[in-house]
């Protein structure tokens, strides 16, 4: 292939608007385009999906905590977590169906099971998780039933059934919390795809943080000791797992700059605040609630930030053309590699 027609691309130090912060190794934005139009179609997913990332994670984290509380004899925390898991998964299902172009056809997802489609895998994970989380939560209503008669039998049967369902939900929960990383990464959206090693860890940490947060707010203070440890673990998983996101090169830019970057940074700051507050707090109910709220808010900010970063990267031809052009110039066509 000849070089004679390669456009003399204008040199321009390109990093968009100058934000402070760390210097990134981003190549200058010199590339050709078709009238500056995006090469890709930006995701059509609405904020429903960013919301789903949060509610799905919250449900998964809560199911894990619910099982932990169940196995270590913490009934108050168990009840709170089971209801949160059910609420989270119900909201998730609503958001997912609502986002479809044809909501009435949501059940077409159940025609097939495809490993190559993270959305199909996720549908089946949700289909397994949802009913289990539902049974576990509803079993918490057993004490409201009368002591005798047929309902009395239900009252005695409910707790063991709820325990089995709670453990089953917890068994599928880690998959529910992490498959969403693959859901976003398995696209042509540059910032999502390139972040594929990080996203499942960021989402796993974020899910545990959100669920710990709700527990810290709503569960009896005497039972929340594990949540404080879990908040630290969540922060570690999210921060260590996500440390490479902004350093991806040009496609990491949306995680550090602009509105999406501010959301991601806010998520980290809130995570740090929530974790530290949970650690130092021993007695204060108010401090507990504040740290819980910070953890929940951190998860919301992170999910919306990551979601937004992907949309930004698909909207601007720079993020599509520059990395591919760089790859071509360095290694030649992708052929045979």
């Amino acid at each position: 292939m000849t070089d004679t027609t390669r456009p003399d691309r204008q040199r321009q130090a390109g990093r968009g608007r100058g934000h402070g912060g760390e210097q990134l190794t981003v190549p200058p934005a010199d590339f050709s385009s078709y009238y500056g139009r995006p090469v890709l179609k930006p995701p059509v997913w609405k904020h429903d999906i960013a919301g789903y990332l949060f509610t799905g994670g919250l449900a998964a984290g809560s199911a894990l905590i619910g099982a932990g509380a169940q196995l270590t004899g913490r009934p108050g925390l168990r009840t709170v977590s089971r209801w949160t898991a059910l609420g989270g998964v119900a909201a998730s299902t609503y958001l997912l169906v609502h986002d479809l172009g044809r909501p009435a056809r949501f059940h077409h997802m159940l025609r097939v099971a495809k490993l190559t489609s993270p959305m199909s895998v996720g549908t089946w994970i949700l289909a397994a998780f949802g009913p289990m989380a539902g049974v576990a939560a509803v079993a918490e209503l057993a004490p409201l039933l009368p002591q005798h008669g047929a309902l009395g039998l239900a009252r005695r049967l409910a707790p063991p059934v709820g325990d089995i369902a709670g453990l089953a939900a917890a068994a599928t929960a880690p998959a529910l919390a992490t498959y969403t990383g693959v859901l976003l990464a398995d696209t042509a959206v540059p910032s999502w795809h390139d972040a594929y090693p990080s996203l499942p860890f960021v989402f796993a940490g974020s899910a545990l943080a959100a669920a710990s947060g709700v527990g810290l707010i709503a569960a009896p203070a005497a039972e929340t000791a594990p949540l404080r440890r879990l908040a630290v673990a969540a922060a570690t998983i999210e921060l260590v797992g996500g440390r490479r996101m902004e350093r991806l090169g040009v496609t990491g830019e949306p995680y550090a700059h602009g509105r999406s970057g501010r959301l991601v940074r806010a998520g980290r700051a809130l995570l740090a605040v929530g974790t530290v507050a949970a650690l130092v707090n021993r007695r204060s109910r108010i401090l507990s609630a504040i740290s819980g709220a910070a953890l929940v808010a951190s998860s919301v900010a992170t999910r919306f930030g990551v979601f937004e970063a992907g949309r930004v990267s698909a909207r601007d031809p720079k993020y599509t053309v520059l990395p591919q052009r760089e790859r071509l110039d360095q290694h030649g066509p992708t052929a045979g590699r």
Partner: protein
Amino acid sequence: MPHANSLYGPLDPAPDAGYVDAPPRMGFFTDTSVCIGCKACEVACKEWNLVPESGRDLLGMSYDNTGALTANSWRHVAFVEQPRPAGWATPAFLDTPDGPPVSPATAEVAAHTSTDTGTYPGLPSGSPGAAARMSGGSEFLGMPGAHPPGRGSGAEGRTDFRWLMMSDVCKHCTHAACLDVCPTGSLFRTEFGTVVVQEDICNGCGYCISACPYGVIDQRKDDGRAWKCTLCYDRLGVGMTPACAQACPTESIQYGELEELRERAAARVATLHERGVPEARLYGHDPDDGVGGDGAFFLLLDEPEVYGLPPDPVVTTRDLPAMWKRAGLAAMTMAAATAVAFLGRRP
């Protein structure tokens, strides 16, 4: 047992999808060197496939008022006006001002234009900076020119300009990300190796739209479903030529067996090189490329990105096994973290 290359690498897609005795793989070879920009392909496609209207605004993108491939435009003719030196000929516009056809300032304004294509995301506005850079074409050096080129440098430095016209279409990839990520099985591989949406199945989840590395597939606003070129599956079945190729007056769009088209394309490039068009190159023809080769490939006269094509697309599912591994690792970490948090001593 799936083929070792079922996610990446050279592959014959129809047998891989389970067809026994599949007919030869069919495709398009679009030779942009003979495209005259008549848009007969766009019209023929709309007529045959009953594709709805796609907006009637002027976009400020040369003669391109379609803008992009959308759910309501399955062929899209791109127009690029480029000043470039005609090294072997007398400047055609000697004594006339013939600078870049569009000023960077105009291009920046045009980047904001759009039209209601009736689809989503349809035709998103462009990046003004990038539009300004491309406005001057290959000779543009980044300075908004207030006077015609040559005024300062003399007539020798003047440029001629050229038209690039190209009829874009769905690439019908060997490794089609849209098809692989479709959670309903609505997108499927035909016996001809092409990729088609079954509209009675599609529930408008939009995953295919984010997965396509070429930005082809798109969603109709009024019905919520995803639509794209079917390579006239209904016509292929009865041995007919797809509508666009049938309508093309210059045989810029050629339809046929992919193997044969590849040979024809290689010969055409050799001819063009011989005749002094060294910039002619093929795009999407190589079974070893990032998508395993396209069922619809092109002869281009400039870099792919000049036409709005990705220069080196790689199907996202190449990395899918690695992605699932990372997710599995993260899931185990999550479960272990919870276990450790609860196993700790009570305060």
